[in-house]
């Protein structure tokens, strides 16, 4: 039928549409907000699943917006990576907002909750847009929407911290977008195309003629997307933004938003830029070193934090390093590991943030040192946190292990065991800051502050449980998701 043909468009358009319906609903039928939002995201999720199956069965396909063929119209390219990322975004996004439907009531003022759903849907739509678009300018537009929506869901909680963090995030993100747009301009200048496919065809020729342009564009792209993805020295905005936001926002920001830019970067680097250029310029080398530093220093920063969300935020810096490590190593296994880590980290980090949110919801305590004994009073979030922590450390049968396995294997494949050492040291550091929390949660003298928490509603418990099952499940049966990741990696590497 017609509808299924237009899925790639609808997956973006439906949440976009409902995003703008939401303020109306908020005034008119307040109780409909949540179901409608969930419905919209469920639709996207189903669409993503369907697309994923389609991709797996029949291979990548494209969708032309308004039936305009590529050089002129906007093309949505559904390849393995896109389908995979869309699936991750919609799936995890769904669970987060499900959880948020209760948590937000306590974190936000009643009148802005409708707007929150608007922003959230916008965010989801734009993220899906970023990963499935095959047009660089379209990508830029989605990037900007994403940036505004992401800042929006931070600043919607009108505390000083949130607003400042949002402002900072906005400014830096605009800087990043500016760099990205400049890069787009430079690329367009030498190729005359905005479509990835055509650009990629034209670039080798252009490289011979205008190498400088390409290099500048490359640098701008990496810095631009790096700022948004919080790659190590450009991470400065992240800890504030992610820790001050409402918990669902933190979850979606850490779990999904920064990953989307990584996906965008993977696409541009692997599919658009000619391989010779990457061979000539030490781009990958730089990314490797940046990500190694991110991994180590992010973990080190996280160790000294006392605020649970800030710690998680710093941990995200380290984890995004893993993704980029996989990108930078340029071997199949490593790329698989990196891409897989996008998914795994989305699961883990959203779970951790949601669990942290549950702690805050229940007890109002944010300090790690005061969370002792939380495992007795809030067992389910504590167990979820525990699983997340183990996954972060890379204990087998959790999903974190699988991505680490592939990353390590990849680093060996290219003969650079040093990076494996980086991964292992970082895992150790992860152990240093995650495990004491788990231990304190379950053993030892409980603190008074956590003695009588508010009971958690089902809407918050169920997503947490699903996520923790997911972490275990994809640790035991990673092949379900690995198939698509493998093909994505192969496609990206041109194998």
């Amino acid at each position, binding site marked *: 039928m017609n509808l299924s043909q237009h899925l790639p468009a609808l997956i973006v358009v439906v949440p976009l549409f409902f995003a703008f319906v939401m303020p109306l609903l908020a005034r008119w039928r307040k109780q409909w907000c949540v179901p409608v939002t969930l419905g919209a995201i469920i639709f996207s999720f189903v669409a993503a699943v369907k697309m994923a199956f389609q991709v797996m069965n029949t291979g990548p396909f494209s969708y032309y917006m308004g039936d305009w063929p590529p050089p002129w119209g906007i093309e949505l390219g559904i390849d393995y990576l896109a389908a995979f990322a869309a699936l991750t975004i919609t799936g995890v996004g769904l669970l987060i907002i499900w959880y948020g439907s209760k948590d937000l009531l306590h974190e936000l003022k009643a009148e802005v909750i409708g707007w929150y759903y608007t922003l959230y849907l916008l965010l989801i739509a734009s993220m899906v847009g970023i990963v499935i678009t095959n047009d660089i300018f379209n990508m830029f537009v989605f990037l900007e929407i994403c940036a505004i929506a992401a800042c929006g869901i931070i600043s919607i909680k009108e505390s000083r911290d949130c607003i400042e963090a949002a*402002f900072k995030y*906005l*400014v830096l993100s*605009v800087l990043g977008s500016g760099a990205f747009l400049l890069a787009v*301009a430079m690329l*367009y200048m030498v190729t005359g195309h905005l479509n990835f496919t055509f650009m990629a065809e034209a670039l080798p020729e252009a490289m011979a003629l205008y190498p400088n342009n390409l290099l500048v564009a490359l640098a701008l792209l990496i810095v631009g997307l790096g700022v948004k993805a919080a790659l190590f020295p450009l991470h400065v905005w992240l800890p504030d933004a992610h820790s001050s936001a409402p918990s669902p926002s933190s979850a979606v920001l850490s779990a999904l938003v920064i990953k989307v830019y990584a996906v965008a970067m993977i696409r541009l680097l692997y599919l658009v830029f000619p391989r010779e250029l990457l061979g000539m310029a030490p781009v990958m080398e730089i990314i490797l070193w940046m990500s190694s530093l991110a991994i180590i220093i992010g973990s080190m920063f996280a160790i000294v934090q006392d605020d649970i969300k800030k710690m998680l935020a710093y941990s995200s810096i380290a984890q995004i390093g893993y993704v980029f490590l996989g990108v930078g190593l340029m071997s199949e296994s490593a790329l698989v590991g990196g891409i897989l880590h996008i998914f795994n980290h989305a699961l883990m980090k959203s779970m951790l943030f949601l669990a942290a949110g549950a702690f805050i919801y229940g007890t109002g305590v944010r300090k790690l040192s005061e969370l002792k004994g939380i495992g007795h009073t809030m067992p389910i979030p504590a167990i979820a946190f525990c699983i997340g922590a183990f996954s972060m450390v890379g204990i087998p049968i959790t999903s974190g292990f699988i991505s680490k396995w592939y990353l390590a294997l990849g680093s060996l494949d290219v003969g650079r065991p040093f990076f494996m050492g980086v991964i292992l040291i970082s895992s150790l550091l992860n152990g240093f800051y995650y495990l004491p929390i788990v231990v304190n949660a379950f053993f030892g003298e409980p603190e008074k502050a956590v003695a009588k928490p508010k009971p958690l509603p089902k809407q918050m418990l169920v997503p947490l449980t699903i996520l923790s099952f997911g972490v275990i499940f994809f640790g035991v049966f990673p092949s379900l998701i690995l198939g698509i990741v493998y093909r994505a990696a192969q496609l990206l590497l041109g194998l």
Partner: protein
Amino acid sequence: MTITEIVLRLHANSYYFFAIILFIIGFHTMLTHNNLIKKVIGMNIMDMAIFLFFVAIGYVRGGRSPILEPGVNHTFINPLPSALILTGIVVAVSVTAYALSLIIKLYKHYGTIDAEEIMRIRGGGSL
């Protein structure tokens, strides 16, 4: 490369060159000013520089705006960048609006739009 050559090349690429200079000015504004509004202005300047750069790409020397009239055969400029930049401008405007609204909120909280002042009020890191 002699200076003349450089100058000539700069002249040939003057649009780009000046766009970049504008970009740097914008960036510098953003970088150095404490006043949040000025920062937003700098941001806009920067954006505009990029837009100009983009539009300049599409410019063909001696070209005209691509309004097709029957029978007139003329060099046209490339319309696509201009069209794209319209979108870009919209985006920039919305970002600006959003940033300004944030500044208003900040002003409500602190009674100032100076980053320094805000920091002083927060107390955490008085300069």
